[in-house]
């Protein structure tokens, strides 16, 4: 599935990225009242052909992270590298080359397609910009429609003539046009009906196998991530709280927030009602995040240390990193209740 050696340069590197949005009041002479720390120190890598799942709830920063990777925003600090090259501050040909390599599919099928363009024209957009000739473009559009299991003769129809699931497939076809190396999938199935989601997930996996394209899958649903992602990153209020290969994460959840997330996944198994971790309170605002560990205000395992010192992201088992004082290497308290939760989550 993956090409090249494991030791080769990963396809995407995110290094210590922060994105702070100034919170400004007033129009002409704006006063900066503070910063929304949407992303506050995130690092991970994605290898060619693999899927990284980015999980979290409102305000965790996953959407901002995906926008940074798409070069729709520039980081306040840190950098992002694609195939070893920085992706921000690019111009001209270098920018055009980057655009061809990284594409996206967004959540809302009703907003993702220009209602005044035929779907063929939308799919062809990146090719038109790249300067392809018309006959070549037409052939490729037909081929792409077939790839996403739609009728190639429908290229001249308009978006409103298709259903939600079909529109998402059209958006996928448009993303595939330039043969990208990485596709950012931002909640690609959450707006679709349950039975359509399965179709889309199967399609995404098939295409990945055929094209050897990597995915950054931003999702809030753990079951989807389990089904599609090779590695999983859990975010909370702009920080990475846990990061592990998916199988390992699902077998051995460590961080209290991740445990709560797992607990909140309602299984379609009424006979297996799991022990529930119900978090108290609301998700704090990223404008004014809690001190120390950002999760300490809602954490059922919070210790005095947690409100003062931010826990570093540390490796607790091969490939499995957690940012929590409970597991801090060299910390006297040791792994208090860090044990695995087997049973329901064991594959």
């Amino acid at each position: 599935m993956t090409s090249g050696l494991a030791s080769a340069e990963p396809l995407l590197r995110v290094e210590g990225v922060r994105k702070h949005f100034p919170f400004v009041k007033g129009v002409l002479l704006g006063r900066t009242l503070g910063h929304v720390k949407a992303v506050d120190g995130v690092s991970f890598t994605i290898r060619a052909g693999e899927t990284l799942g980015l999980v979290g709830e409102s305000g965790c920063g996953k959407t901002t992270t995906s926008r940074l990777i798409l070069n729709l925003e520039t980081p306040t600090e840190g950098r992002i590298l694609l195939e070893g090259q920085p992706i921000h501050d690019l111009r001209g040909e270098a920018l055009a080359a980057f655009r061809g390599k990284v594409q996206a599919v967004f959540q809302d099928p009703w907003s993702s397609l220009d209602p005044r363009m035929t779907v063929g024209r939308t799919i062809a957009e990146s090719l038109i910009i790249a300067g392809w000739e018309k006959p070549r473009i037409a052939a490729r559009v037909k081929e792409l429609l077939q790839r996403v299991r739609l009728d190639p003769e429908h290229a001249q129809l308009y978006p409103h003539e298709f259903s939600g699931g079909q529109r998402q497939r059209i958006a996928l076809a448009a993303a595939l046009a330039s043969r990208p190396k990485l596709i950012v999938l931002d909640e690609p199935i959450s707006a679709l009906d349950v039975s359509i989601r399965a179709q889309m997930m199967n399609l995404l996996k098939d295409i990945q196998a055929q094209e050897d394209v990597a995915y950054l899958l931003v999702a809030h649903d753990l079951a989807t991530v389990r089904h599609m992602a090779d590695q999983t990153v859990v975010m909370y209020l702009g920080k990475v709280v846990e990061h592990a290969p998916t199988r390992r994460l699902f077998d051995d959840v460590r961080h209290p927030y991740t445990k709560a997330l797992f607990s909140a996944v309602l299984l379609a198994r009424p006979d297996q009602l799991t022990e529930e971790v119900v978090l108290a309170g609301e998700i704090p605002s990223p404008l004014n995040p809690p001190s120390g560990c950002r999760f300490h205000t809602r954490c059922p395992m919070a210790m005095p240390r947690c409100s003062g010192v931010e826990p570093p992201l540390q490796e607790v088992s091969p490939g499995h990193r957690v940012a929590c004082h409970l597991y801090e290497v060299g910390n006297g308290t040791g792994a208090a209740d860090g044990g695995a939760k087997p049973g329901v989550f064991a594959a």
Partner: protein
Amino acid sequence: MSTDNVLEVRDLATYFFLRRGVVKAVDGVSFDLKRGEVLGLVGESGCGKSLTALSIMRLLPKGSARTVRGEVRLAGENILTRSPREMREIRGRRISMILQDPQTSLNPVFSVGEQLREAIFRRTRGSKAEIMKEAVAALRRVEIAAPGERIAQFPHQMSGGMKQRVVGAISISGYPQVLIADEPTTALDVTIQLQYLKLLKRLQAETGMAILFITHDFGVVARMCNRVAVMYAGRIVECGPVARIFQQPSHPYTQALIASVPEMSGAVGRLTTIDGQPPSLMDLPLGCRFAARCAHAQARCRDAYPSTFTVGPEHVADCWRLDSQ
């Protein structure tokens, strides 16, 4: 009628009368809601579940939609024949509703306290101070911290989860016998959803009200509901206790739907999908509406709409395959 049932729906049908044709969005829906139970109504978009709720509440969009037949018996009396004035008394007091989008459920220009006051005032004519006290108590009941402060806040100052709680507080302020919840947690974060569902369950236990819980999420059904009805193309195709439906889904649509949801355990493989699309509600087939997409369809299925067959205790499904003859 059984005194166990607080709501009985019989052959409810609501159509949209358009220039192009008639859309049979709800086409003969029948179910019972027992006192104190949570009944789930599950289906995908376009199946008619939300419209069923609106038909029961008689809150259909003005214009082309009309309930053409059926009865909705609330504690014995058919409310479909009541006058608009009588319905206004019934809504909020005896039967109430929570909607999906907390953003649009609350009026942005009034404070939370004022909106609660309005609901409470309809029920008890007290002094302003008394009503405010009740309002604060209502917020406390839905587990909103510092209710005394929150009462003066506006919706935009609150998170989605908190807004849904306020909506919940307003809906139950009249102590209704029946609460219809239309996808109340779909727009909420997962951990917030869990909080909210637990709250709903607690309130239900306290007040003894029955809940008709509309959702597309089987996980929510497993957690919240005692019984569940599955809807497809305007009709209920299967109904039964939650445990039985999950253990022994009998209608092919229910089976396919449950099978298409990715699991949290077990092997990660290809997901089961359902080919094709639901039929157009303007042009419904004569026989079973799922036949065109069903792996087990026979000639019989296309000729006549399946009768209701009993699969187990209180568990029924409309499918010819279940006909033992």
